[in-house]
């Protein structure tokens, strides 16, 4: 074999050198920070977008943006979005989409409202809501996966169908749940701790747990592989259909928690509960840096995306612009983020 054909590889003599693999493979230019930045470039990019946006807002109106009230209002509504944004990152990574979560939010929180109204403990209501969410997620997932339907269209259909059911039965009537205020469940899930809405702590816990699930658990590993190359995953013995159904179930659970939280904020269940979340939540996932093609994504990025999106509306108004500018800035942030992520992350084939 001529010299030019020698492969650029170490000689097998390296075999007899055991030791810490992290040391063994160390690259001279490897610094932990470099690795950290490369591994989290999408999330860090999203964070940069958020920081720039907030800086612009603060320069525009320093007084409003240093008052705690503004942040408290965002911190109350943000958790609701986080509980659906994070599971949606899993769905998009898996190569699917779920547009049925607003109706699942409405349906599960309706069950919660019914249980509480019937005089049972709100904890029981929460359990019932989560069970409903799981069931609906399984239903939607099975329809898409075993029915072999396009998840984009099928989940859109399910969204209308479930919302329609709610509307038919309730005929537009809302349910007031004034008894909630005295309950333990309210204190634990919806009160304030040192002036900070307690929901945000639960949401942060959920994001952290999900990020671990995504990066350090078999579920996350299989979701990514299935989204990346389903044929290969199948060949390697992964039950691809089962994994796909599981991500929809995860969205169902997240939507149930989100719906319940939104009811607990308002002490009222409306038949439209969850409706307004469809587009902001979807935008958050993609602003967060999860690409549409599947296989990769970032849970933390998605969470920062949700923070960004929820600050746009408050920010635009607080910065002194009229409400008419909100839509424009929503779009601007989405487009700029997408351009940034396109430049920031390469797609491997």
């Amino acid at each position: 074999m001529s010299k030019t054909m020698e492969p650029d590889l170490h000689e097998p003599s390296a075999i007899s050198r055991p030791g810490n693999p992290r040391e063994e493979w160390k690259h001279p230019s490897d610094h932990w920070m470099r690795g950290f930045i490369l591994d989290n470039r999408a999330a860090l990019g999203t964070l940069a977008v958020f920081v720039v946006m907030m800086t612009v807002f603060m320069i525009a109106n320093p007084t409003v943006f240093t008052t705690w009230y503004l942040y408290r209002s965002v911190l109350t509504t943000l958790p609701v979005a986080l509980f659906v944004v994070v599971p949606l990152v899993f769905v998009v990574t898996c190569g699917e989409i779920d547009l049925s979560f607003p109706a699942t939010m409405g349906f599960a929180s309706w069950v919660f409202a019914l249980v509480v109204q019937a005089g049972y403990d709100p904890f029981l209501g929460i359990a019932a809501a989560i069970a409903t969410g799981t069931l609906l997620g399984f239903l939607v997932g099975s329809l898409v996966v075993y029915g072999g339907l396009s998840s984009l269209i099928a989940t859109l259909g399910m969204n209308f169908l479930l919302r329609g059911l709610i509307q038919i039965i309730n005929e537009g009537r809302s349910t007031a749940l004034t008894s909630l205020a005295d309950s333990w469940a309210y204190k634990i899930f919806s009160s304030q701790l040192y002036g900070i809405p307690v929901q945000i702590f639960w949401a942060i816990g959920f994001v952290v747990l999900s990020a671990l699930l995504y990066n350090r658990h078999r579920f996350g590993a299989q979701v990514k592989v299935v989204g990346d190359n389903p044929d290969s995953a199948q060949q390697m013995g992964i039950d691809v259909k089962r994994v796909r159904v599981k991500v929809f179930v995860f969205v169902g659970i997240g939507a149930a928690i989100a719906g319940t939280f939104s009811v607990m904020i308002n002490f009222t269940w409306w038949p439209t509960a969850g409706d307004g979340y469809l587009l902001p939540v979807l935008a958050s996932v993609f602003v967060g840096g999860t690409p549409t093609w599947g296989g990769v994504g970032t849970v933390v990025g998605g969470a920062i995306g949700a923070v960004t999106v929820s600050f746009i509306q408050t920010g635009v108004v607080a910065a002194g612009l009229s409400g008419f500018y909100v839509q424009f800035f929503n779009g601007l942030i989405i487009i700029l983020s997408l351009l940034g992520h396109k430049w920031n992350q390469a797609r491997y084939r």
Partner: protein
Amino acid sequence: MAERLIELRDISKSYGQVYALGGVNLSVDRGEVVGLIGDNGAGKSTLIKILSGVVKPTSGEILIRGQPVTGWSAARSRDAGIETVFQDRALAVQQTIVRNIFMGRELTGFFGWLKVNKEIEEASRLMREIGFTSKVFTPQSIVGQLSGGERQGVAIARAIYKQADLIILDEPTTALSLTETAKVFHFVRQVRASGRSILFIGHNIHHVFDIADRFVVLDRGKVALTADRSQVKSAEDLINFMEDVAHPGGLPGLRDAGDPEQRAR
């Protein structure tokens, strides 16, 4: 004589009236690289599918380590330690090397949490075993950043992790440059050195000649030639022979070597 890993005796496969394979004899010994050469339509793919248990032969006998097997299936093939590496679609290219090696059989602790350090350790061991080491990547590099030859290395490392005794490489060097081909050869030699066997399928005769210990030429569903490396002087010999098969009239000396039973003596 080394241990005989797998032996196919008089394997035929017909799809209706069409014969894909008509009485093929093929054997692979432990620690041997067998090169399977054949033109398109010679029956290579059918033979691979039979070996991996996806397709059942119409007639014939399969022996694993000398024992005849009944009820041959994909599961039986896997249990027997046969692993097929396809050139494309085998890897999830946006994932790390580690994730590809452990795809579908993640190393997990309680409750399904990944043993990340254990996986990296194990992946390093596997990669070292096939000489798949480099200064420019680590087990946590993304497969999409690797070259074509290196990707084959990931697939081979994965096959070894699955306890494969016989790795079938389906056209591993097609569409690869010389340097990349050299890398794949490097892995194949390391695998052989570890006592595993390889069935190397290709239609680039030069590639097969460079790497194989034994050559099997398939032609229209039959074994046209089985030859040890010592019996073939150069790749040109093989090419001449294959031309001869296509257009009959030469090289009688080689054709005598066609019977595997004779060769074994």
